[in-house]
């Protein structure tokens, strides 16, 4: 989920810049999280990663799940049922999707706000560990009880205003919860995530269980369970580019 790249060097810059005590504490936690994941070197060695599993939407609707991400930030998600595949992609510039369930198999372009969300998804590094690279602000907000676990709370504020609040498990220093606040078409959207079942892929911990829900609707969760993860899979640019639309309206074939 979260990927890291040369964060240690960037953290070094931050730490030497005379950051205030609170910020230094945040930096230390970010560094501990980086180390817990497997370290910067292991992260740097991952050019791409592929996840296979299933996604279950609220209401208990399950589809197969396949996701590919690259170090460059591309991402593609395929979710299938009855031979029909929902696809969402981001190629670094454009976000797009295919919804075949009601008869359309041509790609549609996402709104810019939705594409920005995909762009965040596309980063293997993730908002917490790419904060230093992107000039985001990381703030330590103290300890917070999360269902009986006394976690560390960090807040990432990106330059575009999107915010990510992370809770780190004190034993493993891995993320167990995240709250994402962003605007879609000007309206605030808050999503919450819970992470678990961490396993190493090429020496780096990734959550194999991700649950997400709209804030305040924790009883309606989307659950993604990864059965297998593979690092450094082939990931050609064509995989992430929006397919061309047909010249005419699709018809029987």
């Amino acid at each position, binding site marked *: 989920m979260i990927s890291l790249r040369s964060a240690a060097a960037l953290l070094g810059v931050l730490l030497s810049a005379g950051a205030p005590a609170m910020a230094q504490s945040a930096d230390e936690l970010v560094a501990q999280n980086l180390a817990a994941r497997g370290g910067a070197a292991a992260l740097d060695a991952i050019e791409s990663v592929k996840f296979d599993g299933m996604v279950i939407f609220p209401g208990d*609707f399950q589809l197969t799940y396949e996701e590919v991400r690259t170090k460059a930030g591309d991402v593609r998600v395929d979710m299938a049922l*009855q*031979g029909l595949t929902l696809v969402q992609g981001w190629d670094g510039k454009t976000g797009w999707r295919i919804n075949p369930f009601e*008869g359309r198999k041509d790609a549609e372009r996402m709104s810019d706000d939705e594409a920005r969300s995909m762009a965040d998804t596309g980063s293997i590094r993730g908002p917490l560990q790419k904060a230093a690279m992107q000039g985001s602000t990381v703030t330590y907000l103290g300890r917070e009880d999360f*269902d*009986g676990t006394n976690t560390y709370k960090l807040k990432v504020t990106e330059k575009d205003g999107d915010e990510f609040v992370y809770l780190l498990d004190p034993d493993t220093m891995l993320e*167990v919860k995240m709250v994402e606040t962003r605007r879609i078409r000007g309206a605030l959207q*808050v999503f919450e995530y819970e992470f678990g*079942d961490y396993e190493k892929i090429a020496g780096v911990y990734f959550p194999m269980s991700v649950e997400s829900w709209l804030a305040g609707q924790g009883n309606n969760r989307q659950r*993604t369970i990864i059965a297998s993860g593979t690092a450094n899979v082939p990931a050609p640019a064509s995989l992430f580019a929006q397919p061309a639309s047909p010249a005419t309206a699709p018809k029987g074939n």
Partner: protein
Amino acid sequence: MRRTLLLASTMLALSAPAHAQQAPAAPAASGISGLGIRNIGSAEMSGRIAAIDAVQGKDGKVTLYVGAASGGVWKSEDGGTTFRPIFDKQPVQSIGAVTIDPSNPNTIWVGTGESWTRNSVSIGDGVYKSTDGGDNWMRMGLPKTERITKIVVHPTNSDIVYVCAPGALWSDSPDRGLYKTTDGGVTWTQILKGSNLSTGCSSVALDPANPDRVMAGLWDFRRKGWTFRSGGEGPDVASGSAMKISNDGGRTWEAMDASTTKGLPKGPWGRIEAVFSPADPNRVYAFIESERSALFVSEDGGKSFEERDRSRNMVWRPFYFSKIVPDPKDANRLFKMNLNMIVSDDGGKSFANASGGSHGDWHDIWINPTNTKHIIGGDDGGLWISHDGGSKWVKSFNLPISQFYHVSIDDKDPYQVYGGLQDNSSWVGDSEYPGGITNSRWENLYGGDGFWVFPDPADPDYVYAEYQGGNIARINRKTLESRDIQPKGGYKEKLRFNWNTPIALSPHEKGTIYIGSQFLFRTRDHGTTWDRISPDLTTNNPARQQQEKSGGITVDNSSAEMHTTIYSISESQLTAGQIWVGTDDGNVQLTRDGGQNWANVGKAMKLGPDVSIAWVEASRHDPAVAYVAVDRHSFGDMAPYILKTADYGKSWTRLVGPATPGVRGYAHVVKEDRLSPDILFVGTEFGLFISRDKGANWEEFRPGNFPAVAVRDIAVAAQGDDLVLATHGRGIWIIDDISPVRALNPDVLASDVTLIRSEPVQQRIRGNGGWPEGDATYVGQNPVDGAVITYYQKARHVLGRMKLEIVDPSGKVIDELPTSKRKGLNRVVWSMRTKPPQVPPAASLAFASTQGQRVMPGTYTVRLTKAGKVTEMPLVVGLDKRAKFTTADRQAQYDAAERVKGLFVRMSALTAGLNAVKSQAQAVADNESTSAANKAKAQALVDKADALRKQVVATTEGGAITGEERLRENMDMAYGAITATEARPTSYALARVDALEKELAEVEAGFAALKAGDAAALNLALQADGVAPIDLAAVQPRPDNARGGPAAAIGSYMVGTRYTGSMSALRTSRKRN
């Protein structure tokens, strides 16, 4: 007073049992909050709002913060269309003030503790600040102020903030008055205090032209269980209330009274509210409660005043309605909160009603400074929005901040929930309903303030409900006709019914109910006659029966102060006629012979005089056992007290006291578990607390979605194990099935992970209900749809796989479920459905076939694998108890569905074969080296294969409603006809399958003929040309590993998330034609 408090506390300490004094090491928290909880609302009646602030952004959107009286802070970023609670993680939920920093709209200040000091008001614990629009909060101090009515931030310096704290309601306290910070809340200085320990701040305002000019009101007030005063004890008794003004930011103050300021009334005064007009700083409006309460208006910045309006809605109940809100643009326009909000357009000379069709009892409004016709306000019935300056109002049906006092449930399946609310009548609502528990699933039954409501167990067409002061009625559920059945007093006799008069049903006789004044009454004929079965069970202290003098300067005797009354009634479920009674003046009375003889067993509790008995609860398991919740908050002691007797009240032990770890907030209710006498539930002003060891240790029940709201009552289902909570501020909540708490023995708690067995689960029938209501209404949550599997784990699961599988009776793994990771109890839901059919791919989804049919009833196995260790438990699946069909019917349905699945398998193989032949033949036809003759043969084969394929699946794409129905689509509908209900399929549904099977066989035969004919001929020709033939071997379709689910879930629930991006565009139409 203080000395008395100390004595009482000492006595309580002396009566503590040994375990409380030498508490053993508390066992590890069991994580009971993992059971989860759901809110069923309702926002139909909503609840009291104490404070509002808002700001309009440059884009025109209004960001709104609503402070509920006892339900936290809610934020809307769309002007009130949708809300989310943003204060739920804080330790209190009573809000007195909400203020947006005028220099930074992301900085929000919240003062906790409501200042509309009615008898049921909650408490706060200081001032909070958020610098990120309410996402995170910092507690900034003033923890002992108890209540805050106003926060003002300097218009240009965010570090300067004034906090106006009326302070403690029930006791003397020095922690009240006007506080100021100049460092953003790091430190505070009390810059103005009253002349005595019962006088706090009621009003603060900064001169818009000179923010160092500060005007403040001081208010002397006190509430006791039996009286209230605003000002002194009477209209002409000395009072600490005063009005002051400072010209140096609060360093020095000058009095503003009749002796210093022309036009102000003579003292003594009560509650005071004074404001500057933002449109003209020389215009000052002041409401002053006095013997001649009125609005006073100054045209010279407060140097002199003139008395203006004294209408009823100006001067009525000043302790509850004092707020003045001047128009930001028009100095002559101002609103005054009251039962009906009133508005003046002539500087306060005259007022008109501005309440429209609202609930009434207004407390605050926000006027949009960019469009003063746009007003958002709060009253006892929730939030209201006006677009015409307050003439007409739109109610916000999206704030479930309802303030229930009590709750009961009936024995229906699903059961209905009954409860009464502060100033919002008595209601009945659904505990579950297809599509969600919308506001419309709640029905008003009566009127006034609501309290106890019970369905009549002797006649389900009737309910008993009451409004304040024991005004009980028997109400016809169908006609809503009500009949007053309140017992009446005799000659020159006054019956003292509490504001919240207790009503109790006899567990032994259907139709027998009890109600208490100072006497206990019993009816056995639905209220047609009453038997007085006790003497006066209270102290009958005349000093606490002077309610006609209550109010201080303004008399206020609404029955809220009625005292020396019976407050709680509990008849033993084990022994008929054994009745425990608690009174609001500290008595606990017991009769063991149906009321012929009574004993004041509360004396043995040795609690002293200053206590109220909030609750008495006869044990379900031992007739000698009873529990008592003692409430001393009306004496200024906010600690919980729970006591228990095991010898009919001869002696008592304290289970909970001020020093008890794990419990906080004054106690309202105590209940025993239905089956285990070890398990106790206690509701306090700050939530629900559970003991698993007879009260020796306690654990807070606080799932992430459940705030620290007052739990005033708990309903325990007579059958089943749901726990229903009446909260005073956030509506009704249900914990579905608390039975796993009983399984948390030391062995389980010591284990890494343990599956917890449950009662047999029902395959609940799924209905269709609800309809889109837009985003501006609240929908209560249903119980989860499926079998709930519960397990305990000692620590949060972070590393490694955790797998939960379902194994069918034959030993085959039929499903894998996502696991919950939290520490303590965890819950996972299994749909109890088979895999869906493997349908051939086509132009769109086969909607009925996105999910499998129900599994057959039987004993399944739950297998949990964690860190390589495997544990299992049986799970018994049964039919819905309401089902009209038999297991044999279900078997017929199951078999029919399996038959269709088999046909779909054949169809998928057929389609795969046709596609394989078609694609191979097309490749031959497209190959330049293929001879012209063979190209023609290949193309002909392509066309014939495609023609057959188009008999099987719909192929028209484009998203339009094509109505194209082929074998696949027809089979999908046949499958849906079988699986849409769970009963035996109809004969014509099965006949339809027969017909479709025949059609399928014809296409299969056609394909076989094509392969044997055209395809074989092509292959011979290709071989003659030395070209590889096409492969005619059977092709297996690619397996579909998706389990699918109800197609409606795609339309209803797909949510945008970062992990998968926005799904909103993927929705299928909820209404498909």
